[in-house]
């Protein structure tokens, strides 16, 4: 049967140090470095015994602590000028560590504050956005009259009649246009204009196979680096540019 030992976890060496300082109830600005270092090393040893991987950051801090401890053991130089107080502060090897601890503690507290706010905010609900279907384009309706409407209707109807030839599914039909034909057509048009729109390559009564053929030709031409394609956004017209 295996058992578990709960070892407090810390966010990092600074977190652990703060914990030790708080536990020892000592002033953060006057850390008894020797005691704290011992406790710090003891914690690392506990981690080792439990076979926990000690992050390198913890080891870096251990060496920093030991360095400070050894510096503290050195006899302080006798300073006899007026700036003594000031210089003492500069000399104190703990000062950098204290600065980091104070700085870190500040953010640790902010984090606690944010946690409360996060939990609170998790109790709030929003309504999902309505699903809208956007119309493709705004159609100008103001300047239309009945005559024009009839005209448009007629052209649509005539186009429809031309196109509606039944598809014979009993036998496989030959491709109406070959890829070569299509590629040559696009090349010719590009040589003339330099830049064309994908939609400009066919009109309303182009058959499905024509459109597919055109699209495949474009892919082929892109692959062979003959053309460059531009599309402003999803579903917008593709601009074909000759390289």
């Amino acid at each position, binding site marked *: 049967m295996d058992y578990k030992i709960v070892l407090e976890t810390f966010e990092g060496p600074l977190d652990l140090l703060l914990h030790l300082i708080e536990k020892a109830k000592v002033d953060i600005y006057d850390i008894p470095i020797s005691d704290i270092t011992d406790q710090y090393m003891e914690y690392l040893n506990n981690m080792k015994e439990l076979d926990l991987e000690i992050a390198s950051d913890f080891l870096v801090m251990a060496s920093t602590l030991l360095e400070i401890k050894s510096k503290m053991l050195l006899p302080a130089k006798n300073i006899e000028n007026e700036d003594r107080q000031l210089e003492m502060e500069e000399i104190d090897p703990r000062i950098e560590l204290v600065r980091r601890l*104070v*700085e870190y503690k500040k*953010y640790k507290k*902010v984090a606690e504050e944010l946690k409360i706010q996060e939990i609170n905010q998790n109790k709030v609900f929003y309504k999902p956005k309505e699903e809208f279907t956007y119309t493709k384009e705004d159609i100008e309706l103001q300047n239309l009259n009945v005559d024009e409407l009839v005209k448009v209707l007629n052209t649509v109807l005539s186009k429809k009649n031309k196109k509606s030839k039944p598809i014979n599914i009993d036998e496989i039909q030959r491709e109406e246009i070959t890829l070569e034909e299509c590629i040559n057509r696009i090349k010719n048009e590009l040589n003339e204009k330099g830049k064309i729109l994908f939609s400009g390559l066919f009109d309303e009564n182009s058959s499905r196979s024509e459109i597919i053929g055109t699209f495949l030709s474009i892919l082929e031409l892109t692959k062979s680096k003959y053309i460059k394609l531009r599309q402003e956004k999803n579903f917008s017209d593709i601009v074909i540019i000759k390289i």
Partner: protein
Amino acid sequence: MIEEVPFMDKKEIKAIIEALLFMWGDPLNLKDISSILEMDEKEVRSIIDEMIDEFNYERRGIKIIQIEDSYQMSTRSEHFEWIKKLYNPKSNKTLSSAALETLSIVAYNQPITKNEIEMIRGVRCDKALDTLLEKEIIEERGRLERTGRPIIYGTTKEFLKCFGLTSLEDLPSLEEFEVDIEEE
């Protein structure tokens, strides 16, 4: 053409704004609301401010929240106990302490590099940063033009929303936390 716009009283304007916010669901920009109403942004802002107060004063179940220059409707956290009876979210995933610490450092020091964050925290922050980036609470703000061209990070609108803040100025001031330390 001004004459063609029907005269609207304030109550009507408020009702329209309410309808827009309800229908849109997501944060709706002040600019958009103003252009729909064909009104001055300042005027619309003060009307929405009034609405926010009214919603609070009348203790309505819905409140209007402000995130920078956008407005959105939401329920109130104090009604969660009741909402829970109707629908209980599986688990309220909150950020880990590591992520929260990293986030607080970013929030007060943005834009900031990963290295600078790690200097303050004393530990590596890759995982915490990844989580925050994935949740779109922070974002990359480009790179510093110095050796190594380090990426710099800053918080997003999603950050404000997740923590119920109107703007970054809403964050508690850092000095508040410094005083605490000296008192101890």
